[in-house]
């Protein structure tokens, strides 16, 4: 009896603790459900309609929106631009961030100053960052153009964001400038969790800096790498603010990504149904890419 009473009391306490826990997360969960889950579910509903975003009535059109999105002239460009950013931007961003983190971790004096400078762009609004880079890239009155003109090299100035061949690289530089600080900080956090005695032992064995980076630092940083790769992938697939301010997807469709096109469909072309269809596709791609990345990188974590 005593045992049964004790067990019952233990279960009651556990249930109470669980209920209390749920109760405390309930407000946040409610916000997430109301402002993220429900709108996402509604988008799956609206993607099957011809809703224009204003009208109180709409018609169901089945999968016509998906067909229209996929058969649009610019769709191949949307895919290729989004893939470009995923394949180029995500690895380059993470490589740069790791390098900066490793340098900042060991730099000693003024490390805090450098950390602040690295992170400053990320404090700015994305719109401000876009306006800054529009000014920098202006081939006539921008600061780079003026400097080149001053030293007699104005012929070297290109319209980096006005040419199809260079706009994606110019955009990537802007994104890298803006985002590197954030990911560097995450890597700095990861570096601080690596036990120093491993490096001391490596130093005693005569291992050089580069070998330490490859065989110790990066394997031990795998959890941070996993987080950053997944976050960066989701950010590049779903983000559009910098593209909107800097290039508006131009020239032509040269820098138009899936997320930016979804925005244009919704708020410039009043074709919410098509925008939701594209958003559903973006979600599927984003979730699939994240799951594949998590599975692959988690394995590497375990191996490390």
């Amino acid at each position, binding site marked *: 009896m005593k045992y049964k009473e004790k067990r019952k009391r233990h279960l009651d306490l556990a249930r109470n603790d669980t209920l209390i826990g749920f109760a405390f997360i309930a*407000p946040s969960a409610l916000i997430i459900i109301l402002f993220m889950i429900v709108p996402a579910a509604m988008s799956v509903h609206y993607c099957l309609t011809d809703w224009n975003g204003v009208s109180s009535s709409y018609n169901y059109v089945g999968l016509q929106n998906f067909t229209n999105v996929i058969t649009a002239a610019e769709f191949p460009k949307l895919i290729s631009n989004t893939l470009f950013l995923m394949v180029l931007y995500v690895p380059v961003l993470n490589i740069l961030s790791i390098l900066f983190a490793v340098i900042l971790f060991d730099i000693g004096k003024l490390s805090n100053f450098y950390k602040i400078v690295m992170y400053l762009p990320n404090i700015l609004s994305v719109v401000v960052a876009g306006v800054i880079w529009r000014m920098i890239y202006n081939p006539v009155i921008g600061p780079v153009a003026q400097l080149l003109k001053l030293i007699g090299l104005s012929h070297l*100035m290109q*319209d980096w964001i006005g040419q199809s061949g260079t706009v994606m690289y110019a955009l990537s530089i802007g994104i890298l400038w803006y985002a590197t600080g954030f990911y560097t900080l995450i890597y700095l956090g990861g570096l601080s969790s690596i036990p120093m005695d491993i490096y001391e032992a490596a130093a005693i064995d005569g291992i050089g800096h580069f070998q330490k980076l490859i065989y110790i630092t990066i394997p031990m940083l795998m959890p941070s790498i996993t987080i950053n790769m997944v976050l960066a992938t989701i950010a590049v697939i779903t983000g559009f603010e910098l593209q909107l301010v800097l290039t508006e997807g131009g020239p032509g469709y040269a820098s138009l990504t899936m997320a930016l096109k979804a925005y244009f469909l919704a708020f410039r072309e*009043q074709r919410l149904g098509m925008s939701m269809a594209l958003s559903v596709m973006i979600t599927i791609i984003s979730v699939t890419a994240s799951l594949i990345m998590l599975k692959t990188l988690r394995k590497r974590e375990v191996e490390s």
Partner: protein
Amino acid sequence: MKKLITLLSLLCLAATTLSACAAQPGGAQSESASTPTATSTASETTAVPPVTLTMALMCNDFYDTAQEMAAAFESQNPNVTVELSQIPNAINEYLQPKAAANLLPDFMSVNADSFALSLYEEGLLADINDYPDIKSRIIPQLVDPFIAPDGGYFGVSGGLSSVTIYYNKELFSQAGLSDADIPQDWPQFLAVCESIQSANITPLIVATADSTANNTFWTIGMATNFSAKGKDYAAAVKDGSFDFTQPGYVDVYAKAKTLMDGGYLVKGVTSLKAPGAMDTFLQGEGAMLFAGIWLAGPVFNGAEFEVGVMAAPWNEPGEKKGCFLGSETGYAIAKNANEEWSAKFLDFVVNGDGFYIYQNGRGNQPYILDYDESRIKMHPDMAAYVKMITTDTDFASGQPPYQVLQSKMLTQIPTTVQQVLNGESTPEQAAEIFNDLYNEK
């Protein structure tokens, strides 16, 4: 005790969360308007109740003027508080989510386009026909763009809109040109561009990274190739019968390509937006600026050189010139509990001091009949230019695309122009892309 603390904590959390949801839609103003203030005395119970008017204006180039208008209205109506917001991006992008949530501002900027019409047809905008004192003062040609198919009048024009080519007289002089060399047709224009280029000066600055391309290349091209030849393209486009692959439309892109191939366009033309184009011109980096007359104030006041204006001569010799006569961004009032006061502000902007504050700040073409000319501020050259294009029989006017095309088409004009300028599409291919979108069901 633990449960009591838990319950109290939850209530606090919920209260904090829900307090952020206390929205103040425009229609709710009537509740505050009808509630007397705490300091009301018996003698003030007959006073006009306080009203807060929410106002969202596209006033990037005249924010100070907009604030002055709001302040002047408040001083004339002490019970009114105007909450002015500047629309940061495109009007439709700003208003659409608000419209979907039925939270439109009481008084707002709108264009005479299909989006504003859809707001009216949804019952979100008031019918200004209910305020005859306002409609009767507007120039008739500026009323028509805001008339709905059911006869409703959903917005008031903010001015007569057109485009012009501003030119830097100093740079013209450096190129050996004077006012007498102002081109009257397309071959002459190309010759002028060639002369300017020979003097190592950039001939023409025009923005194509935003909707400026719509108002410049598109409208002047359409007006020259159709209106000037007696063809009403606007009606054909609206009823779905226009063929965008015909030579007259292909020529819209072809002329842009000719300018690009000749090296007459400013470097970075495909990434240039209207503010950047104006700055580039004002810094003396180009001889001519193809832009709207709504920039007359900033251009004439901001230039450190003498500025002239000319009509864009896209016509062949002996043919009429095309010009663009449309409505500038105007105003609409929301159909809500504050409609009466919003209409009073609209009346202030049309019939009252608000008109002169607005006109003086922008230096644009007045949109009302019978104004006091001594109170108008407009550069004499611009006034003469507007008079010329509205009265000279050598000009045929065309409607701008936003008064004619659906939203999905408007965004494609800059895109197709950029593709032609960059050589990614031929003019024929660009026209075909545009036509396919037009015919898409």
